[in-house]
């Protein structure tokens, strides 16, 4: 940030002609693409977010219909509407879709719409990444959910416990569809998490220090970080799982030294934080709408931050409470029971903060508030049964019964679904400019509320009376026919409520526009105009309060008249402001991605890798992999780290910031760092596997033909080469930064050679020692670690080569060196991966 001293003349915002010129330019720059195909290449968060939301909503309706079929089957004892096999597919797909295709993507979708508006940004920092995430989600989601029409849906329960699901004679293609289809979607979830974290940390408006951030942004930050640490263990589990199914590597096969419990650990290290990943964003909606309807600032802002961060941490110490009946030592169970009880504290804090705010405020009754308060009531019931099942001895009685089904639905409907309906009624005017019907909304609420309780409350009783989960029917003698019939009637009521909401949505286009900011809210997103422009925000405001619309004088008018920052698009580029993490000082103007077919093509190519592998078409899958790589390189080469036409730009009020930064102040650097955190977490899941197997075997590593290896020599050679490749890359960055371009390029060549050599040396250990991965879990896990590291080395080589090519093509210079700095981050992590892998497989057998 430098102060104005050149003869730059700021535009006169009092002159309507100047403002008109700015608006024309902004409109032109942000014009969406048109045409029956090209309109889908849009990357603007307004549109991607809406597509994303509608798609996730569609999947929710689909999964809801599956649930209705199940409830119809269970309405009376000994029913034969569907077969046991179909029923297995129904409940597996219902749970999997609600979790992976609705709850998590919905949070990301809503955040993609809301976050830029909450932060007064024109768009998120990587609009094309959002587009890529959306298309990946759509393709993966249709692939997984469509499988039921071919009688090929997964049928092992949404947590897919081996050995039922890993044995190909017990479970068919469905298990592969689950693993590969959902892995693909997990990739898009991680991509969205990266985008949202960078968005919250780096794209806030000037002046929006951490203590002025909307609470929604706090929650999104916390949840996105949780995704980074929760999803990768599942991805690691998926890798092991598919290796077992496709290649017969016995990770979960006890006969060959594997252990099905490892899957449960990896799954639930993901699965429990997942509950909070879907719950916190919904609660975040409350943190936005409750102050609006209480017409006052939220009380206890730091308490909400305590609750969000505290929940995020504690939620990673709960996973074994899903495994209370697996025979683990009681003392281990007690640790997790303790953490499960402790997490009730921050959860309760949030609820009390909301109640206190409403109490202290001047409450305006409204449909969104009705949904919010109703869902809190439902959630509290689910939370209390949660405290009950967190007590291990109680859980032993209730485990795998309908009591658990009741508990989890109270939590998820009260903690995710109903809050989303609250958000829907609250934010619909923001997105469409029109309000939904209060009357229909209230009718739908009461029908859903009664229906929900009628469905799930009896399940507590049927569960305690002995009805196990996941049975396709039950005998009359059990005496639970009446309870089940009540549940079925309730489920149809609930569905009726959802239908009324859908009717309300369908009627919306016929309704008149609502006034701007119809709820009289105080937060930034309500700057949105009913006849909205595509540019996001007219000028990026200076923030001085948590509720600027309420507190800052003439705020809306000043934004609209372009009196704040970046009111123009002089160079006809899409732009947004990047600020510092703690205090939101402007540090850069970034040029944002424009509509492009590249993200969509990349998603299609990557989908090919996962979908073709499902059908064992490995050659075509490899072709798809190469196509994905080509798409990514094309995308990066043509549209990232572009050298700007001038070094700096005026954004108004005498502030001039660079158009290009590299290193830790740049969004791209953060994105790389965050992605690699997720990657390192997945890797640690695999390493956990290695040591897990060590703990359960007295002779680990075992000895025998095909079991001895990989020795010390090759792993140490590979380690030395990995470190040499890393040192060369870091050296290249340093000398290049000092202007020695030739030396930088030479070091990159050295880095390429060393890293490539490390790839082969890493595989040489298990190869030359003849480790047979089908024989026993030890060779299998050693090979897995070695291959993981080799694949990362290969990607590292591609990155080094890419950077070298950028330098040779004149697209990277000592001043504009983001590529080199970003790949150095990658190589730090690669070095770490190499150290852990090669010390583990090479040296650990010597000390074990």
């Amino acid at each position, binding site marked *: 940030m430098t102060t104005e001293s050149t003869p730059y003349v700021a535009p006169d915002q009092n002159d309507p002609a100047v403002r008109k010129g700015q608006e024309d330019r902004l409109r032109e720059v942000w014009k969406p693409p048109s045409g029956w195909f090209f309109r889908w290449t849009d990357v603007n968060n307004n549109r991607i977010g809406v597509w994303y939301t509608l798609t996730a909503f569609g999947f929710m309706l689909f999964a809801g219909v599956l649930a209705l079929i199940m409830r119809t089957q269970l309405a009376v004892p000994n029913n034969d509407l569907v077969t046991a096999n179909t029923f297995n597919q129904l409940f597996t797909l219902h749970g999997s879709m609600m979790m992976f295709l609705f709850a998590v993507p919905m949070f990301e979708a809503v955040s993609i719409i809301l976050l830029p508006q909450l932060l007064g940004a024109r768009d998120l920092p990587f609009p094309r990444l959002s587009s890529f995430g959306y298309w990946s989600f759509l393709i993966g989601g249709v692939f997984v959910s469509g499988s039921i029409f071919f009688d090929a849906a997964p049928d092992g329960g949404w947590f897919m416990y081996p050995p039922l699901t890993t044995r190909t004679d017990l479970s068919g293609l469905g298990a592969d569809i689950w693993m590969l289809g959902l892995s693909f979607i997990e990739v898009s979830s991680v991509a969205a998490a990266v985008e949202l974290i960078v968005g919250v940390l780096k794209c806030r408006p000037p002046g929006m220090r951490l203590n002025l951030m909307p609470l929604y942004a706090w929650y999104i930050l916390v949840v996105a970080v949780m995704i980074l640490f929760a999803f990768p263990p599942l991805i690691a589990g998926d890798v092991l799982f598919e290796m077992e199914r496709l290649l017969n590597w016995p990770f979960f096969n006890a006969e060959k030294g594997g252990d099905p419990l490892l899957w449960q650990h990896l799954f639930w290290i993901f699965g429990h934080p997942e509950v909070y990943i879907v719950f916190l964003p919904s609660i975040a909606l409350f943190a936005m709408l409750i102050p609006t309807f209480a017409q006052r600032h939220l009380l206890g802002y730091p308490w909400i931050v*305590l609750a969000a961060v505290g929940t995020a941490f504690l939620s990673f110490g709960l996973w074994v409470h899903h495994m209370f009946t697996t025979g683990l030592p009681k*003392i281990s169970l007690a640790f997790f029971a303790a953490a499960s009880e*402790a997490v009730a504290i921050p959860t309760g804090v949030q609820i009390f903060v909301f109640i206190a705010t409403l109490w202290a405020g001047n409450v305006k009754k409204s449909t969104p508030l009705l949904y919010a308060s109703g869902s809190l009531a439902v959630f509290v019931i689910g939370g209390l049964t949660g405290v009950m099942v967190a007590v291990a001895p109680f859980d032993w009685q209730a485990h795998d019964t309908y009591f658990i089904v009741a508990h989890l639905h109270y939590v998820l409907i009260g903690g995710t679904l109903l809050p989303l309906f609250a958000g829907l009624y609250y934010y619909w005017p923001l997105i469409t400019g029109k309000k939904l019907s209060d009357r229909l909304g209230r009718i739908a609420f009461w029908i859903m509320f009664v229906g929900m309780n009628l469905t799930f409350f009896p399940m507590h009783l049927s569960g305690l009376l002995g009805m196990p989960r996941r049975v396709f029917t039950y005998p009359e003698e059990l005496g639970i026919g009446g309870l089940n019939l009540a549940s079925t009637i309730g489920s149809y009521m609930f569905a009726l409520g959802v239908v009324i909401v859908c009717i309300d949505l369908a009627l919306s286009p016929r309704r008149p526009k609502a006034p701007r900011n119809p709820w009289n809210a105080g937060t930034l997103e309500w700057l949105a105009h009913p006849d909205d422009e595509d540019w996001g925000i007219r000028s990026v405001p200076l923030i001085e309060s948590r509720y600027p619309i309420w507190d800052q004088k003439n705020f809306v008018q000043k934004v609209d008249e372009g009196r704040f920052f970046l009111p123009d698009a002089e160079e006809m580029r899409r732009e947004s402001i990047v600020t510092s993490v703690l205090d939101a000082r402007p540090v850069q103007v970034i040029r944002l991605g424009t509509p492009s077919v590249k993200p969509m093509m990349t998603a299609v190519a990557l989908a090919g890798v996962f979908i073709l592998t499902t059908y064992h078409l490995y050659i075509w899958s490899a072709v798809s992999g190469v196509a994905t790589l080509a798409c990514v390189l094309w995308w990066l080469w043509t549209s990232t780290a572009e050298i700007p036409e001038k070094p700096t730009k005026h954004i108004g009020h005498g502030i001039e910031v660079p158009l290009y930064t590299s290193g830790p102040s740049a969004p791209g650097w953060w994105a790389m760092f965050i992605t690699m955190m997720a990657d390192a977490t997945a890797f640690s899941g695999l390493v956990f596997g290695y040591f897990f197997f060590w703990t359960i075997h007295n002779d680990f590593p075992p000895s025998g033909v095909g079991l001895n290896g990989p020795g010390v020599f090759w792993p140490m050679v590979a380690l030395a080469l990995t470190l040499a490749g890393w040192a060369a890359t870091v050296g290249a960055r340093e000398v290049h930064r000092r202007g020695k371009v030739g030396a930088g390029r030479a070091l990159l060549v050295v880095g390429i050679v060393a890293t490539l050599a490390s790839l082969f040396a890493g595989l040489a250990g298990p190869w030359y020692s003849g480790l047979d991965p089908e024989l026993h879990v030890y060779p299998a896990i050693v090979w897995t670690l070695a291959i993981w590291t080799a694949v990362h080395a290969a990607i590292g080589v591609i990155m080094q080569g890419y950077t070298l090519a950028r330098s040779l093509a004149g697209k990277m210079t000592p001043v504009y060196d983001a590529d080199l700095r970003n790949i150095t981050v990658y190589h730090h992590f690669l070095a770490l991966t190499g150290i852990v892998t090669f010390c583990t497989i090479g040296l650990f057998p010597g000390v074990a």
Partner: protein
Amino acid sequence: MTKPDSDRQLESNRKHWARDLKVTLWTLIIPPTIWAVHFLFCYLWVAVTCAKSSAPGTALNGFPLATLIATIAALLGIVAAGYIARVQSETPGDPPPHEQGTAIDRLRFLALSTRLLAGLSFVAVIFTALPVIIFGDCR
């Protein structure tokens, strides 16, 4: 430790070493990170010991003492973080309710949040340590 308000006011107006420490998003998560380390320490000790032994009745020798030491260490760490955060959260300067866009209010906010997290982490660490009172072996 209750002192008259005027004393506390005077004290908080004075310069304090804790106020020179940097406060960031990283310092915010120190208390719960201590909880996580303590939790992992207890869980891994038990998990590895019990998985490595074939007899379910294997006694967890040394574990109660180790837990005691780890718990005291963790609680001391959390108290220290909480104390520093408390001093920082009372940095004098801008008027209440301390939610302005100023450097001091941002500092006070982060420090208060850290202090609250220290409270939660303190309780959670004690929760984690409690099982050792009841269970002494791998059954």
